[in-house]
């Protein structure tokens, strides 16, 4: 089973730089507006008061007392645990007891069976924990204010943001406790449910992906329009994969960087692929399509064609370079001799991997047939990690998502009543979970499922023009002054929409089920780091907003 998306590494520096700039600009604008208002109201003394208050804010945060935060955390944890949140375990138990209802028949293909079990457990955990922490976080502060129990806290020498932090950490403690317990039960359930013969599929494969490029059927790096060569579209609606034609010079080439022989398990270079097959004629029906790897050292130019392989579609195709290229001598002893195109014996470590870069060329050898591939469809497999490792990382991602919900819930509870805060948090969560793809599509000028298709007429006014005039999205509208005005106005809306898109965190990225269920380790750079960065990136401003909201709030107003 392969990934149906492209896991790209997160650029932490660029991400945080952009985040910092946005935060500074927003804070600067906010401060400037406040300064203007204060100046208009009180003149120079008003401005001085704003400076004092600004310094107070910095003082407050710098002088945060961990002891007070801890005390509030413990208090919140105890209070929340008394609110019968443990009922969630009963629901969890019931769902697991009747899991078979939602699962396809047990006599399934092993890979699919494992995928279904793992997906079920992780999704159930998400669905159960999210509502619990959401309700706790959204109702905590408003309830304290209503019951006036918060008054006893604010009269103590405690800063407002410490109250918020205490609440957040307390609710996160509850969320973490629930997550650990249900996660442990889920793990045991998976181990018990997966039949003994399938347990090999419970692993965490560690992939090293490369960057993919193509050669045309004539072997050129550019097509007839001088664009970079791509594969062929064989008619799939979702153009995730591009295909190379069999028995031509068309190639898919992966450049793998930073790999050396010491990283490999027992020095074994193992490729795993999940190419798709497309036949233009029946060919040999009882035989899968034939492919071939060629290893190339991009610096020295050494090329080593390997033994061909049959591509088993929608399955894991494992190719151990040394095993598959072992030859038996006259005495019957098998020995591995990799030879380049000139017949010279090649050493894997010295001649191919020593420069830290390796090109893997993939060719389809079946005439008239096509092999389809996307970047994550081929990788070098490093020694596996345990299933527990990837499963724990999956839970950690869920925890990060819970963190965002808790922070948002507590923040909104600082200025809204319980039901409204719940609705706001739920709205942000649902939009971030379900509408992100829609936002992505509407703000992109390319069709997301097929980047070769341009999206025209996305704006409101251009759509209003195209609909009655029956101009399809495939053709451009005429270039007139009216159209230019329409496009300019639409650009404003679309840019505003782009901004709105970024106000809602993409909660889908916290779902690491595709990695865990497909027996992949959850990668740090492609999954955990962006999740962590997103969590920090959204939580910090939200906490500051909560601090101001609680500080400026009249607590007597229920």
């Amino acid at each position, binding site marked *: *089973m392969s990934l*149906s998306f492209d896991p790209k590494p997160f650029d932490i520096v660029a991400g945080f730089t952009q985040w910092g700039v946005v935060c500074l600009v927003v804070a600067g604008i906010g401060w400037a507006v406040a300064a203007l208002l204060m100046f208009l109201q009180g003149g120079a003394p008003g401005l001085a008061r704003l400076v004092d208050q600004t310094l107070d804010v910095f003082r407050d945060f710098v002088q945060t007392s961990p002891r007070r935060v801890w005390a509030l955390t413990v208090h919140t944890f105890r209070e929340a645990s008394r609110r019968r949140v443990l009922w969630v375990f009963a629901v969890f138990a019931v769902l697991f007891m*009747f899991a078979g*209802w*939602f*699962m*396809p*028949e047990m*006599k*399934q*293909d*092993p*890979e*699919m069976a494992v*995928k*279904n079990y793992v*997906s079920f457990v992780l999704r159930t955990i998400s669905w159960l924990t999210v509502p619990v922490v959401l309700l706790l976080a959204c109702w905590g502060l408003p309830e304290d204010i209503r019951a006036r129990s918060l008054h006893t806290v604010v009269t103590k020498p405690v800063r407002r943001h410490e109250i918020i932090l205490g609440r957040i950490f307390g609710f996160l403690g509850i969320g973490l406790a629930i997550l650990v317990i249900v996660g442990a039960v889920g793990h045991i359930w998976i181990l018990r449910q997966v039949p003994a*013969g399938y347990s090999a599929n419970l692993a965490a494969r560690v992939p090293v992906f490369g960057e993919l490029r193509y050669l045309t059927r004539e072997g050129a790096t550019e097509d007839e329009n001088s664009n970079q060569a791509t594969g062929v579209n064989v008619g799939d*609606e*979702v153009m*995730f994969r591009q295909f190379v034609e069999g028995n031509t010079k068309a190639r898919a080439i992966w450049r793998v960087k930073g790999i050396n022989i010491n990283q490999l398990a027992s020095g074994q270079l193992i490729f795993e692929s999940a190419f*798709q*097959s497309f*036949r233009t004629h*029946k060919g040999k*029906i*009882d035989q*899968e*399509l034939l492919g071939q790897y060629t290893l190339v050292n991009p610096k020295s130019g050494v090329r080593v064609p390997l033994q061909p392989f049959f*591509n*088993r*579609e*929608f*399955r894991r195709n494992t190719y151990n370079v040394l095993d598959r290229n072992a030859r038996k001598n006259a005495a019957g002893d098998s020995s591995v001799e990799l030879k380049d195109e000139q017949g010279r014996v090649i050493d894997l470590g010295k001649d191919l991997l020593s420069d830290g870069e390796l090109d893997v060329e993939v060719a389809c050898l079946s005439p008239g047939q096509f092999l389809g591939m996307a970047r994550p469809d081929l990788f070098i497999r490093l020694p596996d990690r345990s299933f527990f490792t990837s499963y724990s990382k999956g839970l950690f991602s869920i925890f990060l998502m819970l963190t965002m919900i808790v922070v948002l819930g507590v923040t909104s509870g600082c200025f809204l009543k319980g039901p409204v805060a719940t609705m706001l948090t739920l709205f942000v969560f649902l939009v971030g979970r379900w509408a992100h793809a829609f936002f992505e599509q509407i703000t992109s000028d390319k069709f997301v499922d097929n980047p070769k298709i341009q999206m025209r007429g996305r704006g409101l006014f251009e759509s209003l023009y195209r609909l009655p005039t029956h101009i399809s999205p495939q053709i451009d509208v005429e270039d007139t002054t009216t159209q230019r005005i329409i496009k300019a106005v639409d650009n404003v809306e679309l840019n505003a929409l782009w901004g709105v898109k970024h106000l809602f965190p993409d909660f889908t990225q916290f779902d690491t089920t595709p990695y865990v269920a497909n027996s992949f380790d959850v990668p740090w750079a492609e999954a955990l780091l962006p999740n962590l960065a997103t969590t920090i990136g959204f939580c910090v401003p939200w906490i500051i907003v909560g601090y101001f909201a609680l500080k400026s709030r009249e607590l007597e107003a229920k």
Partner: protein
Amino acid sequence: MNNLTSFQRKLVYITGILILLIPITWLGMPPEPGADNRVKPGSGGKLSQLRQSEELGETSLGNVDPTSSTMNLLLLGFRGIATSSLWMEAQDQQKRKEWAELDSTIKSIVLLQPHFLKVWHFQGWNLAYNVSAEWDAVADRYYWVKRGVKFYIEGKDRNEKFPELYWFTGDTLGKKIGRADEWKEFRQFFRSDPDKEQYPNGIDPDVKQYGKEDNYLEAREWFLKANEVVQTYKNRQHIMAEPLFRFYPARALIDYAMALQREGKFGEESRASWEDAFHEWAEVYGRQEFECPIGTIHMELQEDEVAEWQAKDAEEPQEVRRYLNWVARYQDMCNYRYWRSRCKIEGERDMADAHRDLFDGEEAYRKADFDTAIETYKRGLTKYEAMLKLYPDLKDDDNTIEEIMVAQLFWRDCLRIVEGAEPSDDEDFPLKDVWISHQNRKPQMVEEFQRRQRR
């Protein structure tokens, strides 16, 4: 009541409750559980008995899946929304080739729509034909064909009175396994399942519910069951006209016999299967009564019956009221006379020998043993000619014409190779009349000949 004390009022209430309990119990007592998730016939209160007798309960449709009922209750009025959402999800997953997810989604869809025939029909077909075709390895394709068959069987369990679901099961077992491009491998896999891990003895009991060794024979059992359901529950099927629907058990036997021939099995097994097919066609199916505007008719008529009806029809002024007219209409609808003759002729030993000779001739051609091929082809064509003299109706049959024309092409190619020339149309050779009268089809036949040459 106002004059009663509190205690007296309570007594009145309790008495009222007790009195009301009697009719409530009599009316609403739940039925006792019976076998196969059904209720015990005649058990329970009056309402339950009425529900059983009027077949209003869900159990009257088939086995009740408690999950399905629970889900539908829990969703309150949102079943439509949930179902639509799941259908869209399934289509998207299929578009993205996420097969494991698709399998789960389909499971959820049928939980919400367990008694909607089209759901079972659409998704069963989708799994057996569309999803299976997406996979490259033949064993994988067979897995999905089986998933489609199992899906139909699951549908049948939930809806025992839908004859369509029995028929779909039989049709997929017969047509998809026996007629796909991969029919050779599929038929072999049906006999011995390729998934040896799960089925070490090669038998997938969920697919071979009747334990037959051949897919067509297994399909026949499902067709028989489909006809039985129509009769038992008086439940009309909505796939095709009744005379066509009812011929499928016999048709499965014909397909079985034809499949044996395609596999080169021309011995007693093949001949006997044609005899069985003839019996089923003429003696069983042909004697079945069909409703038509003048009453009931059957298609297999003995000579005395024909004479009797000819006499009666002669007195009938309106052609549309004549018995033999309706028999002919129904026979035309299902090509009755052709299949009857075909079964009859194929059951003859000489015909089986003729087929075997043509098959052996082609094998010899492939081994480049052209002398043997020439001799075998000539012998086979001569026998074929003799059989067609006995059954001239078959001279117009497309399959017969194709077999003869392709055999002629192979034979002539052998002659060209060995003797340097093929016989001219002036010379005498077996089945000369067929060869000459169908020259217009020659280009198509040459394509078929060339395709077989490449095998």
